[in-house]
């Protein structure tokens, strides 16, 4: 399990993380989402032992990560801008990783040659961004980590390779119980793979739930009322957003779909349709409550 408790980090007076806390259960795929500058990369750099926390703790398997080689040996990370030695080939980097990680699986490295089909002896610097990303995945997954921490992992990969990479990761999760924490802005993709989600905003964790809980807790309601009447909705409904097109009213309401439906039925609508929200919609409406909404600006 990865645990972050009350983590705070300040850079030259700017609080990048403000008492952030997350918990990633063992064997989970945890999606860390948030707007630009929310502190996702900072959190990830703490989880990989790069940054020292100003306060709070980061634990992997119950052990602190910073300056703990035993804990770090169980973690593999693919940052957004993966570093390789300037004149190194994939094979050179493999030898380096093999020397560093006790669990490095050389057989797996050989097997993945067919999967990634990269020129092993070509200088990484001369490869495309997507190829470099594939190389990073290749090496990271050969480390056989208990914890895989990824920052924008599939950015730059083609759709086939994206699916390939996710498939490999899902395989590791199901077969070896690998815990994955992934930060991405591609919510559509995360929705397909993640079972837990945490939303970070301005250095704080807004919410953290399993994806099913999250989707159960917020609903989109489309309703049509009697002509000429717009009844007052029950006061105990937590409405996050309202819009109206013709006679169709659309509400984003926090709460269980069944409960919300029962309460709205009291208003005797002509039609009521309760829909689940996508992760992207949840993200947008949750952050809308935090003054991070799409602005209607006219020029």
């Amino acid at each position, binding site marked *: 399990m990865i645990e972050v408790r009350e983590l705070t980090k300040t850079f030259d007076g700017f609080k990048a993380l403000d008492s952030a806390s997350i918990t990633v259960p063992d064997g989970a795929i945890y999606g860390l989402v948030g707007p630009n500058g929310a502190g996702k990369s900072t959190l990830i750099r703490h989880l990989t032992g790069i*940054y020292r926390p100003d306060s709070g703790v980061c634990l992997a398997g119950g052990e602190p990560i910073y*300056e703990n080689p035993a804990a770090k040996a169980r973690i593999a990370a693919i940052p957004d801008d993966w*570093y390789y030695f300037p004149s190194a080939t994939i094979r050179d980097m493999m030898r380096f990783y093999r020397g560093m990680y006790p669990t490095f699986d050389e057989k797996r490295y050989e097997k993945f040659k067919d999967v990634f089909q990269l020129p092993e002896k070509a200088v990484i610097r001369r490869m495309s961004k997507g190829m470099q990303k594939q190389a990073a995945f290749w090496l990271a997954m050969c480390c056989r980590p208990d914890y895989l921490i990824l920052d924008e992992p599939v950015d730059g990969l083609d759709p086939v390779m994206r699916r390939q990479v996710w498939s490999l990761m899902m395989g590791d999760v199901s077969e070896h119980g690998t815990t994955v924490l992934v930060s991405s802005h591609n919510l559509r993709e995360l929705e397909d793979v993640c079972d837990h989600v945490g939303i970070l905003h301005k250095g704080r964790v807004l919410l953290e739930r399993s994806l099913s809980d999250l989707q159960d807790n917020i609903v989109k309601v489309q309703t049509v009322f009697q002509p000429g009447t717009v009844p007052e909705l029950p006061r105990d409904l937590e409405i996050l957003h309202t819009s109206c097109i013709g006679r169709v009213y659309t509400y984003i309401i926090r709460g269980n779909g069944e409960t919300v439906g029962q309460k709205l039925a009291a208003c005797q609508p002509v039609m009521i349709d309760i829909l689940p929200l996508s992760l992207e919609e949840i993200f947008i409406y949750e952050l809308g409550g935090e003054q991070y909404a799409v602005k209607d600006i006219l020029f």
Partner: protein
Amino acid sequence: MPSKTSFFNTTLYKKLLSRFWPMWLGITALASLAPLITLLELMHLTDIQHWYMGSIYTSILATGGPAFMLVYSILAAMAVWGYLYSPRSVSLMHTLPMTRTCLFVTGCAAGLSFLLLPVVIAGALLFLVGLFFGIAAPLAFFQSGLGLICLAVLYFGFATLCAMVTGSLLALPVFYAVGNFLAVLLDLLLANFTSSFFFGVNAAYSGAVEWLSPTVYIYNNVAAKTVFISDDVRQCTIQGYHILFLYCLAGALLLAVSWALYRCRSSESAGDVVSFRFLRPLFKFVVALLAAFSFGQVLYLLFTAVSVSGASLVRMGVCMTVAGAVGFWIADMLVQKSLRVWRTTVAGAGIMAVVALVICLAVRFDVFGIEDRIPDRADIVRVDINADVSYLGTLTFTPDADPEAVDQILALHRKILDDKDFIRQTCDHYYYDRYYDRGPLGEETSLLYCRLAYELKDGSQLTRIYTLPISRSLLADANSYAAALDVLVNSPASRLRQVYYGQGYAPTWGYINVPQDEMDMENWSDSDWERYNDICDLSSDEAAVLYAALAEDAQAGRWGQKDLMGGRGIEGSGSTVSNGGNVSFELELRPSAAVPDTEEPWSRDYARIFIAYAPEMTATRQALLDLGVPPAVLKPEEPALGGGSEIVD
């Protein structure tokens, strides 16, 4: 396989060596030129001395070693610690399952390997060359090798400290270069600054903190020496060898400090000029102060004329303030990585302005009493006086042996300080007034350099150098500094000191230069030559007689009289130029008893004086007559300009 130790990582070590192989292999190839050159040289030598290789080893250590390590260490440090300066690379290295200690130790091992691999390989080749010719000199080889290791630890330690303090690869060599020579630089700047303000303070480099600039200190204090044991036996040693070990300890200490810094260094400091927050204000003010002292003085020199009367407080203050503020602004921009730092710079520049003004005021008004300091007589061990009076040389006096002379020097010093405003003003107008063919004092005036150097009981030295205007009226005024200097220079003690009389020396040999055309000899037969040589060559006893006569004349004022107005003859001065028509003599002096410690080391073994005879030197004349110089040769002549004695090593 992953390393099993927690403080050293073999994979990383090998990676560093393999990544930077062109550097250390290139340097090794360059260093290997030394054995190659030695080999070629030895092949052409017919008589190979056994000490030859020893002198090569020690010379490499003392001459090439410091410069080689100085330059190569920073390259090694840039290679090894380069990952700290990019957020991407530092992220990779700090993600690896290693502690910072492990990273540091491995990095240090790799860096020192870079430095020592060329030394080991080139050294081994050199040793093999020596072995081949049977002159391997293993002791000198071992000593020199050990010395180079000490230098490697020192320079790599400092380069590593700089690497930890900064987060910028460009700043690293700058910090390293400035740090290596900062002490010497500050010494020179402060000397120049204080001499701009203080009347009489010497602008020379003091070297008081030179040990903080190891390269300069090592070059000044560590040297390869060849000791002559007998005609064909020599031993090669390294003077100041212990200094290398002390610096090695300092290097180890710097590495320990660097390790402590690395443990608390933030990865996010990659790219920052100064990687520790607590050092940033210090960095800004050090840069500002350096700028104030260096560029402030440059600005001052650019916009004002050099003046003997001292620097202008206002102008120097303005120049230092401007330079300091600019320095602070640049440092602030570097720290904040932004050009928009006016708001924060204003406060810092304001502080700098105040500091510069306080320094200028404190120095100008001599808050610490430096300018007016005259040592207590009881604190003086010895005092040297030197003035640019012809053939005067440096006169040394001690309170025990020459109480009167020491009192005269103290009185002279006091009078100079009492008249310092007059001296400054007169000197300032000297060249201007001379241009218009008049002296600043309304009469013929000359400037006389005068140096007073006190050695004090606490081991310190106090040196003052004055430029003094001298004129006939000043010399005639008994209360003036000019008269005091005149009395001192022309005292019997000064005159006797010029010929080392009473200092434990005795003449061992002498030669009288008698012009041959003045001799009453026409044919110059063998017997004439024998007679002539008999007159000219002096035994030690004959030389002693002449030396005593000279001392008698000096004591009585018939020899050694000096004119402070630039050697214009004074009646009865007794000084003449030795020209073709005059007699002169030369005496070689060696210590007959213990020479006082006050004498310079070079003169403790040997001194030689040349004296031009003048008619008023009656005692000397009589001695020359007694030694067989024909009376006709010693005919009275008009005194000529200048002259006196010259003392050479």
